[in-house]
């Protein structure tokens, strides 16, 4: 039996996931802004989710520390990925907060000042990519854990971050759909369709990236091979193959392809329902990807370890996965209670 990696648990998995989704949502927002989507809602949802989600993730990271109040020392060693990553996260959160504060709430200065907004977006874009990539490099530089020590990890995490970013914005649009009327609803549906098209391609790329990753790692030495075995036939296989590959990627790929590329006209209610479903599945998949890669990180140090090894997922692991839809329902409920911000469409502006 191969013991699972248990030094970093769910808090870190959620952190890596939220940092990815937040960065991805911001990237989608900038894309939608530059491509001139008729409804600005996609852009605004992206900005509203971006930095706040990364901030929540950072708080989880903070909670995982043994001595949280020592975080003031975190910038001491510029060769540590945690130092570099914390710097990137800090800048991204600040840019995201400025973007949010001056565009959506409480100030709306950036609504008219398009040039300033785009300049800020581009700067934010750089740090959004930095955030998404850093979460992978954090694991990638750990030589003692062969399964992580690969350039494919940052690649995979970047693709997953952008893809789950798309999913979160699509989900947001689908939630807002019923609260809008007339022409705006049409624009929202258009946005969903074009985002779903791109995301379908990304999900396909992610499936390939996972395939390549597992194929390469299975011949990167005996320890990396054990990690791959854990994922494809061991203790993590039900969650990884079922939760991520089947329900987190293949099913949403089919759904999004249908949403984006279907020639046949489908009812708008159907489109909204399908995009909600694909959004939730993709987000849950993103979380499972982070947790699977973390838990499968078998270390060179296993023979040296004297702590009680963990061989299988426990109840908490399953609870964390189940908590996902509940959390999203909560967000959905909140979005019903809190009044929607006024959105000006491009046509009117």
């Amino acid at each position: 039996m191969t013991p699972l990696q248990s030094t970093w648990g769910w808090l870190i998995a959620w952190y890596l996931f939220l940092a990815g989704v937040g960065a991805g949502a911001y990237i989608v927002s900038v894309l939608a802004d530059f491509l001139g989507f008729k409804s600005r809602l996609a852009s605004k949802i992206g900005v509203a989710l971006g930095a706040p989600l990364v901030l929540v993730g950072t708080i989880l990271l903070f909670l995982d520390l043994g001595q949280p109040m020592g975080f003031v020392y975190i910038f001491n060693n510029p060769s540590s990925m945690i130092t570099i990553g914390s710097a990137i996260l800090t800048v991204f959160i600040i840019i995201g907060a400025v973007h949010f504060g001056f565009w959506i709430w409480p100030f709306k200065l950036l609504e008219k000042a398009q040039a300033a907004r785009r300049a800020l977006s581009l700067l934010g874009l750089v740090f959004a990519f930095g955030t998404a990539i850093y979460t992978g490099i954090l694991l990638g530089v750990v030589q003692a854990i062969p399964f992580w020590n690969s350039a494919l990890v940052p690649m995979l995490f970047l693709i997953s971050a952008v893809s789950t970013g798309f999913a979160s914005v699509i989900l947001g649009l689908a939630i807002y759909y019923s609260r809008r009327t007339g022409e705006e609803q049409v624009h929202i549906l258009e946005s969903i369709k074009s985002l779903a098209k791109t995301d379908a391609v990304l999900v396909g790329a992610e499936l390939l990236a996972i395939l390549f990753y597992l194929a390469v790692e299975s011949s990167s030495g005996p320890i990396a091979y054990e990690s791959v075995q854990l994922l494809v036939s061991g203790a993590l296989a039900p969650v990884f193959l079922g939760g991520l590959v089947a329900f987190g990627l293949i099913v949403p790929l089919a759904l999004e392809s249908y949403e984006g590329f279907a020639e046949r006209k489908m009812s708008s209610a159907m489109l909204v329902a399908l995009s909600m479903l694909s959004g939730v599945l993709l987000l849950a998949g993103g979380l499972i990807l982070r947790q699977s890669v973390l838990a499968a990180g078998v270390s060179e140090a296993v023979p040296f370890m004297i702590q009680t090894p963990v061989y299988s997922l426990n109840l908490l692991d399953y609870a964390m996965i189940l908590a996902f839809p509940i959390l999203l329902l909560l967000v959905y409920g909140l979005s019903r209670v809190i009044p929607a911000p006024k959105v000006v469409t491009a046509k009117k502006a």
Partner: protein
Amino acid sequence: MTHYGMLIKLERCVGCYGCTAACKAENKTTKGIFWAAAIEGETGKYPNARRYYIPTLCMQCENAPCVDVCPTGASHKRADGIVLVDYDKCIGCKYCIQACPYGARHFMESIQGYYPSGLTTWEKRAYANHRQGVVEKCTFCVQRIDAGVKAGLKPGVDREATPACVNTCLGRARIFGDLDDPNSQVSQEIIKLHAMPLMPSLGTKPSVYYAGFKGEM
């Protein structure tokens, strides 16, 4: 320059765990934390099967991966090669635990005593040097080395200045000393016995050498 190092002669190790106990007595580590441990295993097939013990401790690497990844600089390497954790700076991010290929680092989740009724009077005093929420590891008994050097003693030669695990070893399997001094016992025996560190391919350049492998690991 001094560079402290250790040689462990496996053919002299009988698997008595004296080093583990001596370390516990000297460094007063809490329940479940062992700075000096051993890998136990079996090798070969009947009738040539045998059990083996590989005593482990912090390898005090020259290219210490734990020092590289530490964001706060709490993990640092002294001029004499000893890798230490500054508990005042450690934030308990556990990145060094992931980076260490020798499993030498332990996260102090909470200070636990050995008795179910709580910490004993002795434990309360003994554990005062440990802190909750930080990462800790073997220090080559730095307190003994520093006090000994101050008193003009030579670590590895004088018992007062030598790590506890070396002093206690009943088979004299452990030799401690200055790797930079070509005339020290440890340097000479490393050359004579063709000693090697564990997992040299990782490029960590450990200061702890092992001699007498017979098909282990």
